[in-house]
């Protein structure tokens, strides 16, 4: 179920663009912000509010990798492992996170707190290595910095 504020935001998208379908991608952002991922039920609900077909919203959603299609941890850790970050040690950062969280890339910790992904270049190559956690960037990472961050998140469950 979508929250009331999400439903309101979706309703506001109506009539904003020349076609109804143009509000599909903005609607996906609203659902993602509300739920942290996109489920078929939530997308159906959104489709009905903005007045597009359920099939269309689903088809579009599956094209975009920004939105997880299944529930992820409270902190979605996405480490860039494209070239510039790799040159600066992205891979050992990934290894360190795997050890520290005791999960492999693609997995979620049993307490549901952390999910670890590797992703493509995030447009932050000058401050490599870096990662995105939920919607924020953490740059020029070192093991000490990672320790500090993970500690902080563990304590603010």
């Amino acid at each position, binding site marked *: 179920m979508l929250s009331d504020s999400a439903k309101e935001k979706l309703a506001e998208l109506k009539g904003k663009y020349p076609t109804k379908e143009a509000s599909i991608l903005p609607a996906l952002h609203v659902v993602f912000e509300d739920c942290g991922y996109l489920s078929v039920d939530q997308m159906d609900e959104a489709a009905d509010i903005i007045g597009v077909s359920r099939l269309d919203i689903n088809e*579009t959603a599956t*094209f975009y*990798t920004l939105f997880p299609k299944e529930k992820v941890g409270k902190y979605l850790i996405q480490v860039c*492992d494209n070239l510039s970050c790799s040159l600066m040690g992205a891979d050992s950062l990934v290894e360190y996170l795997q050890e520290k969280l005791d999960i492999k890339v693609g997995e979620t910790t049993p307490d549901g707190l952390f999910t670890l992904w590797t992703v*493509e270049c995030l447009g932050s190559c000058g401050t490599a290595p870096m990662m995105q956690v939920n919607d924020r960037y953490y740059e020029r990472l070192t093991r000490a910095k990672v320790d500090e961050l993970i500690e902080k998140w563990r304590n603010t469950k």
Partner: protein
Amino acid sequence: MAEKILFKYIDYPDQHKIDVYMKNGGYTALSKALKEFKPEELVEMVKKTNLRGRGGAGFPAGVKWSFLPKGINKPTYLIINADESEPGTFKDRQLMEYDPHQMIEGTIITSYAINCHTAFVYIRGEFTYCAEQTEKAINEAREKGFIGKNILGSGFDLDIHIFRGGGAYICGEETSLMESIEGWRAMSRQKPPFPAVEGLWGCPTIINNVETISNIPHIVNNGADWFASIGTEKSTGTKIYCLSGHINRPGNYELEMGVTLRELIYEYGGGIIDDKPLKAVIPGGSSVPILKADEIDINMDFESLAEKGSMLGSAGVIVMHDGACMVAALQKLTKFYEHESCGKCSPCREGTNWMDKILKRMLNGEGKPEDVDLLFDVAKNIMGNTVCPLGDAAAMPVMSFIEKFRDEFENLCNGGKPKGTIKFPFR
């Protein structure tokens, strides 16, 4: 070095706020443009500067604007391309996070010049903070009457929408971007028709990069001749070069077009980390052909790089020292294109997959001697045979890495150990 233009106030405290932006001369160009110029005169002015697109292809902005059909009964749209996803590129994000009004002022002036009343800023989905900064700035500009109805009493109306992407590199390609705004899976369209004739919802549409558009207020303030006098004869103005990789001072550097790659690396970038020998440089974002260490006495402008068989692209300069294994480095790029191919045409969809497979096989020590030629062949067959330029973008690095570092590929395929000391596991 000429003065900085786009980054002049990038470090100025609170430059993202409209009052500070205006104190530093912001929005004077807008009122000048609306009061002193007819739209066609602005198009002519930008044509005269020879300002070339900063998004990768380098097409002259004024010429593109003049392709818009005249006297038709359809709206014209302007889209600012802030999808910034080319590996090695991170300039537009900085421009928008720290000085968003510069881009917005450019957007308003451009809209006036091309008779557009609805503009979109298409921002890469991951750039949340950037989108927040831009949205705040658009709201501030609206409150001051720079966006909306009858702007500054000129009778000109404009609305600007922020549109956020969904994490797909292909959405930076202009036809995919339009599919994305229209709400569909972002698969590239065949060209022609070109967007200027038939773009968003079938209407004439101009798409320009953030950096391109950020130049417009300065051109209006200082004139076409001023702009044309900066840089080289054919590559005018400044360029924001993004330095990353094995470099002591990575970051964005706004410099006059034509600065040499050597100066960029050793003077501005402070040289190679740990004083190691330079091995290779990708000069224009991941898609462009690589240069060897002995090719860096080259001017960083559109023509000079093209002459040497590479490209300025998005000016994402990725520097590698001798610890980097070229095969592993290439695989990092190839898996990217494999992941980002929209899947519409088979040379790209299948070819990127095959290239990635062959590279992984080589790195696993399972490469066969004939694999080097096979890999090159797959790339060559993608080149020029796809709907959109992503196919070429995937093929060019492969062909150039093999041409310039063939020994490393052959070595691996003949049972040798990878060169380089950097850990490079691959997925």
